[in-house]
């Protein structure tokens, strides 16, 4: 008897004890949560999320397959010049510059700029050191070929002055590759990579880096420019975008760049949060593998060009917030083809597409063209883009097989094996100047897919040196026309930039075209 009761009682007791503990725990949690909410609002930090951990902070780091990397880099390292909101070029780390002749540019460095955690002052010798590191072939810096193509040499012409001699005369300022100012003391050997450290001069200093968890910066109290009003900038690594939405609601994040339209919509409806969408510099495109047997017939390429309903992408994937795009995002209003011409060049004309295909010997019923299309697993909405493409082309008699590949495999396919017909991709013109957007036929990106031609190359070269804005626009628009007409690639649409930020971030205004984290220090955003 006694046995039985005590066992049952034991269970009951332990059960209720557990329940009580849990209840107490959760009660405490709710209080803590409220405290934390207050803390974040009262606390002086921007907390945002990134989907994959930034690979490293080395300015030369070729492991740079993620946009988060660039955002972080810009916080800790200054650039020589930058844009203001009216898209004028303004001096930044470089006080001024002159062009004594066509092939020379002389930069004057600001005086008294100190590196983080050091008393060492930035001098021209450091710039040369950095340049030599950039062109070191063993290191394989991402911009190596840019230097090889355009730059003869970079020399120190004074303690605070360095001279760039160009191979290409009259190269536009925005096209000149310039090494970033790094502190040579931080490197044991120039071929080392500073992954989770930095040696810059920027407004934020790297503070903590917890692998796969978060990266934190604190403000540079000795910054030569406007010291940020905010004390900390933290990047939480959160792979699942839905979780970031929940975190915004719970007050654990106060700034977010969003990739999926649905998550954006959810945050639009939240009180205390402002969600803004704007035109983006980024656009989606489809790589065409010109080496593929299936794509040798120009009629086939033209059929693809006219057989895609680009508006459907905008409607389905961006709910109207995006725009149809050509080889330059329509956000680049000064240089992009006007919308009506774009719509003519990229008209959706299924009948014409079908007749082109039948010229090539295919038809709707028993001889449908079969192509494959690559997509990267788990990367933005590439898979969705692929599915819409597939549905579109099915209408004109083309059967697309979608091959979703993991990123390493995709790189291998694109660079080495060339065993595909089409691939979803995206691109961003670096800034509102389409400086690094187009590739010559002999540049790596274009070498892998073929389809380049000398006429296009000479146009690209011309666009790099033309100073007159109108003339340059003419050249760039010709480039775009040729790219579309020759079907070098298939251009689809430009998704919007979507940001959400807490109303406690006072003074934050989204930057046009992309997310610019420098707004927080340059425009003295504060937290209330």
């Amino acid at each position: 008897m006694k046995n039985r009761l005590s066992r049952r009682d034991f269970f009951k007791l332990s059960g209720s004890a557990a329940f009580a503990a849990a209840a107490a725990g959760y009660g405490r949690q709710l209080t803590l949560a409220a405290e934390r909410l207050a803390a974040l609002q009262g606390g002086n930090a921007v907390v945002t999320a990134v989907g994959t951990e930034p690979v490293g902070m080395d300015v030369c780091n070729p492991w740079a397959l993620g946009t988060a990397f660039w955002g972080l880099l810009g916080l800790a390292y200054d650039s020589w010049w930058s844009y203001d909101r009216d898209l004028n070029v303004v001096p930044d780390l470089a006080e001024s510059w002159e062009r004594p002749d066509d092939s020379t540019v002389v930069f004057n460095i600001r005086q008294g700029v100190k590196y983080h955690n050091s008393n060492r002052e930035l001098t021209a010798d450091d710039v040369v050191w950095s340049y030599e590191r950039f062109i070191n072939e063993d290191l394989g810096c991402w911009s190596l070929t840019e230097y090889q193509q355009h730059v003869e040499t970079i020399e120190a012409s004074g303690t605070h002055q360095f001279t760039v001699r160009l191979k290409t005369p009259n190269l536009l300022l925005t096209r000149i590759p310039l090494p970033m100012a790094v502190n040579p003391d931080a490197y044991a050997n120039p071929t080392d990579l500073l992954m989770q450290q930095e040696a810059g001069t920027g407004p934020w200093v790297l503070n903590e880096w917890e692998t796969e968890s978060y990266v934190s910066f604190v403000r540079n109290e000795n910054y030569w420019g406007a010291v940020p009003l905010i004390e900390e900038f933290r990047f939480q690594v959160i792979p699942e975008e839905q979780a970031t939405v929940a975190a915004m609601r719970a007050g654990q994040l106060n700034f977010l760049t969003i990739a999926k339209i649905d998550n954006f919509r959810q945050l639009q409806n939240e009180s205390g949060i402002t969600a803004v969408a704007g035109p983006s510099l980024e656009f989606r495109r489809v790589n065409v593998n010109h080496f593929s047997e299936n794509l040798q017939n120009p009629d086939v390429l033209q059929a693809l060009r006219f057989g895609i309903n680009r508006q459907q992408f905008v409607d389905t994937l961006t709910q109207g917030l995006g725009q149809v795009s050509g080889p330059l995002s329509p956000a680049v209003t000064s240089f992009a083809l006007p919308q009506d011409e774009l719509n003519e060049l990229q008209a959706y004309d299924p009948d014409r597409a079908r007749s082109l295909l039948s010229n090539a010997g295919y038809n709707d019923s028993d001889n449908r063209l079969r192509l494959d299309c690559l997509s990267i697993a788990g990367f933005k909405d590439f898979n969705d883009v692929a599915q819409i493409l597939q549905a579109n082309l099915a209408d004109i008699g083309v059967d697309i097989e979608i091959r979703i590949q993991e990123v390493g495999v995709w790189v291998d396919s694109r660079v080495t094996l060339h065993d595909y017909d089409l691939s979803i991709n995206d691109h961003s013109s670096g800034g509102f100047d389409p400086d690094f957007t187009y590739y010559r036929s002999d540049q790596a990106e274009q070498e892998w897919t073929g389809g380049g031609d000398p006429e296009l190359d000479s146009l690209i070269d011309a666009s790099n040196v033309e100073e007159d804005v109108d003339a340059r626009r003419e050249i760039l628009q010709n480039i775009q026309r040729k790219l579309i007409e020759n079907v070098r690639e298939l251009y689809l649409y430009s998704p919007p930039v979507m940001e959400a930020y807490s109303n406690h971030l006072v003074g934050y205004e989204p930057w046009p075209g992309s997310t610019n984290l420098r707004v927080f220090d340059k425009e003295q955003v504060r937290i209330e």
Partner: protein
Amino acid sequence: MRGSTHAFATSEGRHTMSVTNTEPIPSLARRELSPLPAQPSATVRLLRQVLRTRVTVIGLAIVVFLVILAIIVDFLPLDDPNVMDSSVLRAPPGTPGHLLGTDAFGRDVLSRVLYGSRVSLVISFAVVGSASVIGSLLGLLAGYLGGAFDSIISRIWDVIFSFPGILFLLVIMSTLGAGVEMAIVALTISSIPIFGRLMRERVMAQRSRQYVEAARCLGASPWYIMTRHVLPNSLTSVLVEAALAIPGVILAEAALSYLGLGVPPPTPSWGKMISEGQDILEVAPWLSIVPGFFILLTTLGFNLVGDGLRDFFDPTQLK
């Protein structure tokens, strides 16, 4: 077991009786001589048992219904599951022309979920079928023969089993290409150890039972013992496990789709539909609920069938 004890007692009693008393007691004689009532055949017994348990019938009905559905789906008057209609994005159920609504691309949910049954069922049947057969065979051999064979096989299983299936799929999909076939191969390989181990445990437990010893004493060959004695007794667990594993494979395929490695688009599978619907749970919950309901139905059906099978094979548990 019950019967054997009884028989032993009777024969002993009989022996005693005939020695001490030449005249048999009438009641005893009658008991000896009257024949046992006729036993119905095994099939009849099964049917009776099955029908007795209504739930099993329900389960069976569900499974049969789903299988037939998957087969006849081509002949049903459904929209093309892959056609996108951008004028009706995320339409709720009840929209004219779309009984269960449409998804984020404007594709009809009803036809996608019905076509999806084919993919999900084919994959799960294929995977569980092959894995259970191969695994059980290996497990039987490993468990009974023991020794070096057992060590090697167990080792290989351990190696396969200890790794998350992702690595498998990466290799297979990149070297041999993605697709339904490859997903089946990869999932099968990952599932074999489950059945193998289970079978091995059961066989090892049976191996030491008295009836096996007895059979060996009587001179039966290992193969005979394995197939006639050990296997039938170990099969229950495997069958139950197989029935339970089917919904598990469907969900595994869903997880793969979530990580971007599942059935290639645009083929619908239930798992894929749930993954796709996940982002817009608040805006369009039917996109996840509908395939989720079908998975639930399948799970229910197979579980009931599994239990029914179990009850059939082990009548000692029915009261």
